[in-house]
């Protein structure tokens, strides 16, 4: 078990050292998410539409689109110089590769989200601080589901020539249950409804998080193999 965790830790460490040196992933995700929000700000008349009604959808569109860039980049690193082959040759269970990549994707996406949330609050003039705890939990559940499925599908699409196109085509339809859940929960939080009154949405999102992780554990061996 120690070795298993150590191997996951090594993958996360390697991704962090690479990101510290290149600063490509976080900056690209942050700028893209910011641009998505700005485009919506300019295209929506907030004096007619209530910010708390359109805001949650826009926020999650920004997170997911930016996150897709991160996922694509994440497995591109492994394909460069056949590094994935090097990983496949180490005496590790293949799920360590999945969990290592999942956790590093999750951390990178969460960092980006923490920078975007205050900007979203300013641009849409919404007080997020009043609901910060529950909102962070919703963001956690949504990001986990996105990364769980996204990491699996980016490993699958990394072998394809058209990977940049295939990843969103495969990912977004399967993410619909999670997107519905987190957008509804974010909207209701902004309307002042307590999180405890949204148990069905929490249940839905958590269930899909677990399903995606479970399916990934069962299939990652076959997906990584050529």
């Amino acid at each position, binding site marked *: 078990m120690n*070795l298993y965790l*150590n*191997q996951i*830790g*090594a*993958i996360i*460490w*390697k991704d962090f*050292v*690479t990101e510290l*040196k*290149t600063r490509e992933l976080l900056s690209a995700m942050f700028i893209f998410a910011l641009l998505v929000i700005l485009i919506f700000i300019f295209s929506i008349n907030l004096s007619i539409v209530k910010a708390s009604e359109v805001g949650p959808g826009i926020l999650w569109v920004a997170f997911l689109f930016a996150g897709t860039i991160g996922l694509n980049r994440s497995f591109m*690193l492994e394909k*460069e*110089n*056949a*590094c994935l*082959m*090097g*990983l*496949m*040759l*180490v*005496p*590790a*269970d293949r799920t360590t590769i999945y969990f290592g990549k999942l956790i590093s994707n999750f951390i990178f996406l969460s960092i980006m989200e923490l920078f975007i949330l205050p900007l979203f609050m300013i641009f849409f003039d919404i007080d997020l601080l009043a609901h910060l705890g529950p909102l962070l939990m919703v963001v956690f559940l949504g990001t986990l589901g996105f990364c769980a499925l996204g990491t699996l599908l980016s490993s699958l699409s990394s072998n394809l020539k058209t990977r940049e196109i295939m990843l969103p085509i495969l990912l977004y339809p399967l993410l619909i249950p999670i997107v519905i859940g987190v957008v509804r929960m974010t909207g209701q939080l902004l309307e002042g409804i307590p999180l405890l009154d949204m148990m069905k949405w929490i249940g839905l999102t958590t269930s899909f998080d677990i399903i995606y992780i479970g399916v990934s554990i069962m299939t990652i*061996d076959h997906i990584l*193999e*050529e």
Partner: protein
Amino acid sequence: MESHENAMEVRHLRKAFGVLKAVDGIDFDLKRGEFLTVFGPNGAGKTTLIKILCGLTQPTSGSAEVAGFDVTEGNPEMRKEIGVISHATALYADLTPLENLMFFARMHGLTEPMDRALKVIDEVGLSQRRNDRVRTFSRGMLQRLSIARAILHDPKILFLDEPFTGLDLHASNVLKEHLKRLHDRRRTILMTTHDISCGLEMCDKVALQVQGRFAFLENIGNVDRDQFEAMYFDAVRDNQFIMEIGAK
């Protein structure tokens, strides 16, 4: 496992991609400490053979044991026994040699990753460049670092897939020296190459793979170098002809 005399036992090994037979019924044994060089024209299935033996891809039929492990089972214990060097380096370009090797040492579960990484970096003569980004390295330096990655966990069996590709004369000689040292340390080596002189110079056994099959397999002592060279060039020419016909 040490009692197992053969490092590799391959029987009727086949791998097809649709109608294309990349490996088409290969049989051979390789004893511990032996060095087999496999020659063959492009597209003969040499890389596919190595991928099967490393457990990177599944054969369509037949069986192969490496270090006493069935390659189809994907046993992590088998991966402790093997090291692979190919023309793709499997190194992270934005990390330094030390970071790359420490990463792979941790993935191999080595107890002192830093010490081991420093030792093999020294062995391949890259100590001066250990903190530079791999992206800045020449092809020869990359290949030396690739050797360091492959021998990091001190494997008993090494697979080398066209390791001389793109190397200049000096880098090629350095690589040869490393391979000789590994062979002297009784490491079992299977190498594919197009370089006749390097390949024949170092091996104990030589094979010629053509269209997925071993058209020739012999101990080096029984091989007439000129005859083998002629046979190899014939195979390459015929293969070129077949590929041109196929393209038309």
